[in-house]
């Protein structure tokens, strides 16, 4: 078998292993998908009417707010899912089995690729569920075929980029308990951006951060693609951030993984 075929086979094996682990320990997956669903329902039905009225348009109501809310919630879904990535990578690193993998003639990156592909699939499931709920409560995108493809593509790229970052965070973590600390901050980023309210309602300093942090351009781009709002330079910013996060996460993760084990 060629090196590439071997790498693919080992990655598939690792992917199967991760799927089994999730099946055996579904609580985490359920919990991570439940968070964005709860946020969606809470913001739509508890705050929706008021926040909708505050959106600016004269006739802002709950329906308008749901439209506004969903892109941010989709990104929150991605951010929540990658907490699971960081946790399961950290669990792996603190179990002896990773040392066993390192002493076997298997493709070096397979452990990580298995995690990334597995997490990505998990994120897709999460996104599908959240999106389904959004449709049920009245989310009505008006995108055409090309816009749909672009929106799904951007979400996928952003998810893969964040997953590599989460893998690195999981590798960096000193313990399983602390592995989800840094990724948790990512879940908050939609709040500190244009996910829930327009950034021009924020005070100057926060507003500056909110407009330039990675989640906002992606949210704005999704909003534009799905609902026809102005995209402006957000599309370029979104792709730029995705590339930066993905490349940084990838090389950081590889560097940490090559580091010799602690004991």
């Amino acid at each position, binding site marked *: 078998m060629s090196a590439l075929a071997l790498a693919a086979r*080992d990655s598939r094996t690792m992917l199967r292993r991760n799927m089994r682990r999730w099946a*055996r320990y579904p609580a985490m997956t359920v919990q991570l998908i439940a968070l964005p669903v709860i946020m969606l329902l809470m913001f739509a039905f508890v705050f929706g009417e008021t926040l909708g009225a505050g959106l600016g348009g004269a006739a802002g109501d709950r329906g308008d707010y749901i439209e506004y809310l969903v892109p941010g919630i989709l990104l929150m879904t991605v951010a929540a899912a990658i907490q699971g990535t960081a946790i399961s990578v950290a669990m792996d690193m603190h179990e*002896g089995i990773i*040392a*066993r993998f390192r*002493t076997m003639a298997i493709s070096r990156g397979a452990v990580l690729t298995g995690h990334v592909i597995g997490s990505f699939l998990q994120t897709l499931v999460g996104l599908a569920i959240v999106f389904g709920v959004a449709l049920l409560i009245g989310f009505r995108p008006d995108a055409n075929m090309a816009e749909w493809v672009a929106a799904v593509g951007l979400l996928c790229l952003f998810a893969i980029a964040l997953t590599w970052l989460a893998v690195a965070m999981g590798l960096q973590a000193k313990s399983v308990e602390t592995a989800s600390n840094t990724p948790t901050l990512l879940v908050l980023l939609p709040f500190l951006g244009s996910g829930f309210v327009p950034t021009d309602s924020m005070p100057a300093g926060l507003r500056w951060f909110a407009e330039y942090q990675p989640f906002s351009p992606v949210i704005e781009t999704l909003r534009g693609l799905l609902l026809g709002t102005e995209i402006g330079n957000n599309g370029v910013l979104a792709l730029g951030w995705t590339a930066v996060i993905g490349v940084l996460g990838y090389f950081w993760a590889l560097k940490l993984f090559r580091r010799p084990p602690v004991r």
Partner: protein
Amino acid sequence: MTLDRPTAIAATGLRKSYGEQTVLDGIDISVPEGTVFSLLGPNGAGKTTTVQILSTLIEADGGSVRVAGHDLATDADGIRGAIGVTGQFSAVDNLLTGEENLLLMADLNHLDRREGRRRTAELLERFDLVDAAKKTPALYSGGMRRKLDLAMTLVGDPKVIFLDEPTTGLDPRTRRIMWDAIRGLVAGGVTIFLTTQYLEEADELADRIALLDHGKIVAEGTSDELKRLIPGGHIRLQFTDPAELDQAARTFAGSTRDDAALALQVPSDGDVDSLRAVLDHLDVASIEVASLTVHTPDLDDVFLALTGRPAESAADADDTQQKETVR
């Protein structure tokens, strides 16, 4: 007997330090194929570091290594394909069942599906894990985990196996099972590199033993050779008649008498010549001896003599086990 066999593990001048602390200070190791080599030493002597280097887990700061014909510097993957490692810390996936763990190893060893299943079934049988096959290791006892761990190592049919303290913390019965498994492997031509803090274990299993202390090999040889390195052996003569004891005590200068037990200890290095000399003296003096036993120093004595402190106490070993269970 082992001299003309090809070398399975050869290391020269291995060095490793972590910052200021030197863990390995230039050690040489040579293990012929199909033999058991034991690295014996207290905690912190550098045993695990040695295994980690030889099994490609960490890089040495200096020295060269060849394992199963592959050079560590140029062909680490070649080594990985030929070895199996069962470490001090359990290397099983706790969320997969015993059977799934073994099948995972089969996949990673690139066995085809049918061969993987066959091998898995065979190993479950061999290590008496058939009933536990569908359970996750979380429900296993320490001994069962260790057996699964070793079974996972064997899936790939390794030619060289590194066992890092394989029986630390195990009960005597499971320890025997592990020992039998190790002997079975050697009989099948496998080379074993074993680290242990149990002198008895090295004594039982190893063809050659090296004593590692502070990153240096302080002695190496067969168990018997090591025991002969130090004094402390004696021949114990048992009498039924106090008069015979008196006479014997006069015959052997430097002997120690135990009047209550009617016994006499004559210093001896335990070899045949010294035994013959004692028997000759008894003959000449016509002394009647009820029984005679030869006491050679055990590895504990060797350890104490060479390192200046006793070998790991049982209490320490229990400590290690507890830590492992808690983790």
